[in-house]
């Protein structure tokens, strides 16, 4: 296993960073929720997005993907506007964002991951189906391919979403709380999968809420509380000071414990 913080910082000189956010301000119902975010994410890392509830974590990744109107600033993917780099970005939304009673099978959902690169009028073929079966296999759900999705448990649903993201076959992934409400076995399987994706050189931006596991999972961290509090390698960012600044007075007992963990690692 790689010690995340040991990775040397990469020089963005050769090619543009996978995601560059410049002076981004986003409003929700006219109330700004993100102020002047400036950040360039390095390639080939698992990057955590952390912050208290209402800090704008989901808003940030939705804004990066163009799902929310931007008030000011811009986002570039691989140095180009998002509209020209759609295939480069994969997405794992929050599990509750869809109706799990929808009349489709697990295989149908995973197949949606290839829709983006088919273009209008083209239908998925046998090669696409085989590719998706392979993606399901990678998340350990191959035997569930023909199940109706309402029959799945929470952890299995999360795996299906990850398989669909794998089917997108992108270089950059944005994931909204993939670890929320899954059992320990699924959490271990998911982080293993994310590390495998990282080894293939992919960049993963992961919204996360559990401060205890965060320093173990992420190479870099973005601390967010309506503004960018800190961004950098986990060792530099995951400190008591930064956590205080990020979470203000709202630190819970759990996160205080995590602070102590962070304190021992310094």
């Amino acid at each position, binding site marked *: 296993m790689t010690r995340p913080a040991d990775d040397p910082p990469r020089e963005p000189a050769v090619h543009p960073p996978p995601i560059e956010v410049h002076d981004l301000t986003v409003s929700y119902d006219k109330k700004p929720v993100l102020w002047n975010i400036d950040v360039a994410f390095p390639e080939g890392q698992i990057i955590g997005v952390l912050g208290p509830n209402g800090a704008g974590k989901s808003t940030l990744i939705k804004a990066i993907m*163009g*799902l929310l109107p931007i008030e000011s600033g811009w986002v570039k993917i691989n140095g180009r506007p998002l509209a020209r780099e759609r295939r480069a970005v994969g997405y794992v*939304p929050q599990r509750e964002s869809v*109706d799990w009673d929808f*009349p489709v099978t697990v295989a149908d959902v995973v197949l*949606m991951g290839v829709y*983006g690169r088919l273009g209008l009028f083209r239908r998925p073929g046998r090669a696409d189906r085989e590719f998706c079966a392979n993606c399901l296999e990678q998340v350990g759900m191959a035997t569930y391919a023909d199940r109706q999705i309402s029959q799945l448990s929470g952890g299995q649903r999360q795996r299906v979403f990850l398989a669909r993201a794998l089917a997108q076959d992108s270089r950059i992934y944005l994931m909204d709380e993939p670890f929320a409400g899954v059992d320990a076995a699924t959490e271990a399987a998911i982080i293993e999968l994310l590390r495998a994706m990282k080894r293939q050189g992919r960049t993963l931006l992961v919204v996360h809420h559990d401060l205890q596991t965060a320093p173990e999972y992420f190479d870099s961290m973005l601390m967010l509380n309506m503004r960018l509090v800190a961004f950098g390698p986990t060792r530099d960012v995951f400190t008591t000071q930064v956590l205080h600044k990020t979470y203000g007075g709202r630190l819970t007992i759990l996160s205080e414990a995590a602070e102590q963990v962070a304190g021992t690692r310094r």
Partner: protein
Amino acid sequence: MPDPSFIPAFDFYQHCVVPWTLNFADTAGTVLLGALVGVACGWVGSYLLLQGLALLGDALSHTMLLGIVLAALLTGEVSGGPVFIGATAVGLIAVLAIERLHTGARVKEDAAMGIVFTSMFALAVVLLSLFAGRAHLDAQHALFGDITWALAVKSNFLGHEVPTDLLQMAGLVAAVGLLVRLFYKELLAMAFDREFAAVQGLRPQAFRYGMLAVLALTVVGAFNSVGAVLVVALLIVPAATARLLTQRLPGMLLLAGLVGAASSLIGFHLAYWLEVSTGGAMVTAACGLFAVTFLFGPSQGLATSAVRHVRLQSRMSQENVIRHMFKLKSRLPPTPVDRRLLRRELNMPWWTLGWAVWRLAGRNMLAIPGGTSNELQLTAAGEHAARRLDRAHRLWEAFLVDQVGVARDHVHPTAETIEHLLSEQLVERLDDLLGHPVTDPHGAPIPRSVIGDQGPGVFILSKMRIGDRGRVVGLIDGGVSIAESGALAATNEAGVTGAAARATAMIAALKIPLGQLLTVVDRNAGDESWSVELADGRTIDLPHRLTDHLLVQLLDEPSPEYGDVPSGPASAAN
């Protein structure tokens, strides 16, 4: 007008055959137009329903009345392009108004919908009554439609006079079908996960507005036939019915179309019989189909699951009766059992016991030798079934105690239920897992499997009990049995692999020929090996993995002397 207190008697010939023979063209036209409306509404409604937009469909079809009325007042026509444009424009204005109301002001979405659609609908009704004379439109037709009237307006199609509405609806159904086929994946992605679709560049917002435009087309197309109010039912009810019947989107679309079309056919005959509005009858028929599906649907129907529950209860009480009689055999003389004893010991109400006994007697599992029905006796078939249940019950108890670690005195209640539900295969897998136990955790004997491994009475040696006598009939490896003539020593060739090959080699070394008679004298040290006495007087220890491969025909006849060789076809091999 028919007398409302009078419901005409239904006559199949009069109400179902005559309309087709008397005036085929009109009947077929009406049913076809209704069916086309039903199919289009079923398809569009399916997509609305899946996105939780059933209410929006309701609201929009009401507001579109305003567009239709405005267009009709301006042009004097109640069909054609202007009406469609008016309906679509008003529909889109309504969507925008609803969104603005509930994002900007402090109005919840459902309230916003209610405000917008009722106000626009009311305005349409006011305009309708104000200018009723100007356009060929009155409130009655606008709200509930009139299929006969819709068929009266004709236009020229390839030299034939064809009702305009029929042409329009046929075109609409073809267009919707084509759109669904061409944009299946975009529509599915939009309906299931709009954000994910947007990320992939599938333009869900554009398809959403496209869908609303098709909804407007459908409402306008159905306007003359069923009106602006009843079309709501046709959008929602067939789709909801289809959703109850299937778990896949293509199946749902197919069934929604079928239910829509069937509603037209049933509704037409209903209307013909009761002399009522065809549109109303069509919606009534659709709701009837929904009710039938809701009650009797194959997997989710209320009545269906009630029937399933009653059947299960009945089966369980029957099985409890025969298993209890089977257990009584061990402590009572083999005479018929008194029904009152059963009732007392099973603590079963008399009607349940009466029903169970009646069913069991009918299935030839119980005999009532005295004819008074108070004396009951298990038949051979009944005992066979009871033995299986007893085996499932005791193996489950053994499993809970040995493998799950449940306390011995806690296992009985769960086993009481599970014995009725375990499949034969699962029971045999439990038996394998537990190493073929002979007694349950309470020390009571576990009955032998009634099916055997290779036909009745043929078991692997590890399933034999102490004192059992049998004849070696072959080797088995994962269901493949090798039973050639001659000694098993000769069978270490093709088809025998892995563990079976090793077992074959060991059996060869032990010189056990086919047809060998043996008697189990002991199961040693936690069932790790079996001691068997051979016909020639030798006693050998066979390890468990070997006994799992040796097939033995259990011999029923008692054998005071081990050395004798009974005559039989297999003995010729020795």
